[in-house]
């Protein structure tokens, strides 16, 4: 039973315990997927925004959010999808970026690119440091990786491929 006295912090904390199923060192709050948590009468309402349109993890995330809130004592839970503003990796905090690196995934390099031209013919991604040895002598192998949000990079110093969370 949700009473007006209980601070919404309890719901925020419950949601902050939900990890991204693909990147289990980041919570859905770290990623900026959760835009708002509030009470509407007896219902806890969570606004989420998708990372990528086709990200299959979104359904799992919605299910996990509902379960986490119910475990924290929420009665009814409603998960809303909001599209504006569109998700950006700029919302990932410094602390979360460091955890990502420690997990072996290079965090987004710099801010999300602002398109200068329609189709850049000589596009350069800012230097991406290898999450293992920190060398910046790395190169992109493919802009597409194991999930929509990651690219495949290669470190020419430690000679290992690694994943990079694309700045978008």
């Amino acid at each position, binding site marked *: 039973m949700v009473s007006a006295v209980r601070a919404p912090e309890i719901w925020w904390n419950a949601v902050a315990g939900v990890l991204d199923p693909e990147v289990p060192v980041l919570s859905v709050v770290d990623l900026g997927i959760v835009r708002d948590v509030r009470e509407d009468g007896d219902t806890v309402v969570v606004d989420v925004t*998708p990372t*990528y*349109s*086709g*990200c*299959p993890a979104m359904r799992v995330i919605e299910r996990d959010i509902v379960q986490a809130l119910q475990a924290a004592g929420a009665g009814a839970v409603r998960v809303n999808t*909001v*599209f*504006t*503003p*569109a*998700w950006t990796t700029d919302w990932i905090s410094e602390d979360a970026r460091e955890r990502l690196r420690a997990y072996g995934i290079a965090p987004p390099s710099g801010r999300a690119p602002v*398109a200068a031209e*329609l*189709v*850049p*013919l000589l*596009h350069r991604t800012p230097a991406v440091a290898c999450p293992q040895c920190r060398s910046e002598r790395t190169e992109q*192998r*493919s*802009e*597409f*990786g*194991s999930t*929509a949000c990651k690219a*495949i990079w290669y470190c020419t110093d430690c000679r290992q491929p690694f994943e990079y969370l*694309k700045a*978008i």
Partner: protein
Amino acid sequence: MSVPEFLLRLSDDRLILGHRLSEWCGHGPILEEDIALANISLDLIGQANLLLELAGKEEGRGRTGDQLAYFREAVEFRNALIMELPRGDFGFTIARQFLVSVFGILHLERLSQSRHGDLAGIAAKALKETRYHARHSADWILKLGDGTAESHRRVQDAIDELWRYTGELFEMDDLERALAGDGLAADRAELREPWRAEVGRVLAAASLKMPADGFMQRGGREGRHTEHLGHLLAEMQIVARSFPGAEW
């Protein structure tokens, strides 16, 4: 009921092209490309799903995105013909992806300013994705155009063959003119020149020739499709139709 009809045009373009791209899964020329095409396919099908759900909501007859995707017949699909053409060789797939992605960027830039809030939000998200789809295919246009004699010939043939399907992307009719007048849709005809300029710039850099405009195929927006769509739908819809109500 012109908004749902317009949303179906947008979603069907993405659903059908996304399905065509998914046919490459397991058949890409190299592993990275296999993954790239499957990822782009996933983005497009994801965009289509969001738009179909919205179309179903606007229509108000209780149809879900899945019902719209799996239980409509070919004549009810509203995609442009270019999306349904068989995948062809890698050059053909890349050439189509390039022509369509540049159009997609221009169209989505406008639609992200739509007065329809949900459509604007979906368009803003799809725009980010379409930008890197265009980057990916433009990279390949350069590699194939400037590659071997065979790669050059194949990608030039593909561009030449696809050209007569590009006119439909810029077609306006009373429905979209009315929506554009209300600030909900965009004037596609205005996108033609910027599209030609951008496509021409990349083709020139790849030492490829931009074909002259001639006869243009059309009919997809009214449900008049090539024979290829029926085969695609048969494959795409068979599981949902064999096991109605199944969830996975």
